[in-house]
């Protein structure tokens, strides 16, 4: 078991709900500071988005933060260098796209990630059927390749995804792109339930969680939450690192069992 999964399981087993903030690598000059602030606010791991020119899965906010990062010259290399420099005390998960992985080659890519201290990898346009070469490379470099399951995923397929995912399973809360929604879809609860029947991996709920209330509700049935657009929206709107940290701290608080 790799470091990421060891950590997520341990937290889950200790009854602690996982908080996984997402930050687009290179989106600002001081994005490295945000990693520290996230840790301070109680993040259990951090997803770093590797900006891609054609982010098919992402909604407007992450598209915008990706565009901004690319315009600022973000590359895989530079982002990894910053991660290595900051070396956050929690696992880092690369949130990438298939072409960014395959262009240098899955093995070279995973090696570079591992070198920089990254512990996990999510490739949203690499479904389980297409994962084999990347999964092998990740495994070779002790990276956990976490897979996504969606409300549309059939039961048999959920089982397959759950079995082959590493680190945790990412449950996509709704049929849609990344981005804040008023509330998670009904189907989220159902999806998490299905995944639980298939695996004892922690199940993290993501897509559209934007407010403490939603976080609290998710904590009622999932092992944790990923929050990206809500954070990036604030960042793009000019929030300071301190304000972003405070927002994450609110979410952290909301995740704690009531009372």
């Amino acid at each position: 078991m790799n470091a990421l999964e060891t950590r997520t399981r341990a937290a889950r087993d200790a009854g602690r709900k996982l908080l996984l903030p997402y930050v687009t690598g290179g989106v600002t000059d001081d994005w490295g500071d945000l990693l520290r602030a996230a840790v301070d606010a109680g993040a259990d791991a951090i997803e770093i988005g590797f900006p891609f020119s054609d982010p098919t899965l992402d909604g407007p906010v992450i598209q915008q933060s990706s565009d901004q990062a690319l315009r600022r010259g973000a590359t895989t290399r530079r982002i990894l260098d910053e991660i290595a420099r900051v070396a956050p005390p929690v696992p880092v998960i690369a949130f990438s796209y298939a072409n960014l992985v395959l262009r240098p080659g899955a093995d070279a890519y995973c090696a570079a990630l591992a070198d920089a201290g990254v512990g996990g990898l999510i490739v949203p346009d690499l479904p389980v059927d297409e994962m084999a070469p990347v999964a092998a490379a990740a495994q070779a470099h002790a990276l956990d390749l976490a897979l996504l399951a969606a409300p549309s995923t059939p039961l048999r397929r959920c089982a397959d995804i759950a079995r082959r995912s590493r680190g945790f399973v990412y449950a996509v809360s709704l049929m849609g792109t990344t981005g804040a929604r008023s509330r998670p879809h009904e189907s989220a609860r159902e999806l998490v339930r299905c995944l639980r029947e298939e695996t004892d991996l922690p199940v993290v709920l993501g897509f559209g969680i934007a407010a403490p209330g939603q976080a609290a509700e998710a904590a009622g049935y999932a092992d944790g939450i990923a929050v990206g657009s809500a954070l990036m929206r604030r960042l793009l709107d000019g929030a300071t690192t301190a304000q972003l940290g405070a927002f994450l701290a609110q979410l952290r608080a909301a995740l704690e069992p009531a009372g």
Partner: protein
Amino acid sequence: MDHLLPGPKTAVSRRPTGLGRFGEYGGRFVPESLVPACAEVEQAFTDAWADPLFRAELRHVLAIYVGRPTPVTPAARLSAELGVNLLLKREDLAHTGSHKINNVLGQALLARRMGKRRLIAETGAGQHGVATATAGALLGMPTTVLMGERDIERQQLNVFRMTMLGAEVIPVTSGTRTLKDACSEALRHWVTSVEDSYYCLGSAMGPHPYPWMVREFQRVIGDEARTQCAADLATGTPDFVVACVGGGSNAAGTFAGFVDTPALLVGVEAAGGAAISAGSPGVLHGFRSKVLQDEHGQIAEAHSIAAGLDYPGVGPEHAYLADLGRASYVCVDDAEVLAATHRLARTEGILCALESAHAVAWVIRAAGDGTIPPDATVLLTLSGRGDKDMATLMELS
């Protein structure tokens, strides 16, 4: 020209293997949310394509609505000038003005068969959008077209046309605000509405089963042309089969009719969008193929005078045929294309689409430098008519 490899290879696989693979290309690189939708389309298409009733219905619509078969016109005067025997497969005569309608009607009938109630499409210059809006109107299916904001500005006529046909055109404001962003947005839009919506993709690209399915819907071009050549040519089959390549659907459909003949297959790309000639393997919009990209894997913008060839990728089957050597891929530049457009107009009375003129331009060049030997027979798919390009041509003259 670098390489024109002769003859058929028995090794050419006609149907993708595994998860939609043409050799090492193809596949289904989409968000998990869309995997079941793609699988549903695959299943539905596989069923429908094996169903003689579906095929008869499609054949019927293509005949009475689109005007198929389109003729093969000998380009007599241009042939005489070039010293070759040039035949034009006239997709410009199809309803809505290009081959796009063949695919769109196939998919729209499939969508109806699947019980879907709405259509989604991406479009660049608007040709595929107009074709989809047309199918939507014909079948009474509300249609949403995703189109880059910049393209909307540049292609107001086609936007208006779609609106007249009752479609909703949604501006895409992300990225370069052009076709490739519209493709991404169409996938995103599909995710949110997959229950009742069908994504009608415009070329032989995208996640499996689209490259295969679109080729099958477009093979009517090649199948008709083969029959027509067999009836008209002493040799039975042409020596060369040429088509322009954007996403690659008209070429794929044309080649499908000739892949098992000795004909040399030639795909002509735009110099500024030459995914095969100048690209490298990559994953974009759900499939693996050759794409224009930088060393980091960021996708490059394509640039061509022909909006329909302005795409940084290419359908996976073409990457496969190129690797295999079964088809050759060449490119021509904008100046050659303009000259070819004018020349075809003056010698044959045909104002063709700038996309199609790429194929003409290559034949002119290749007949000139001997790549096409004297008196060889060349079948060229004229994929569309030039009405949409008149404003561009006027500006340039």
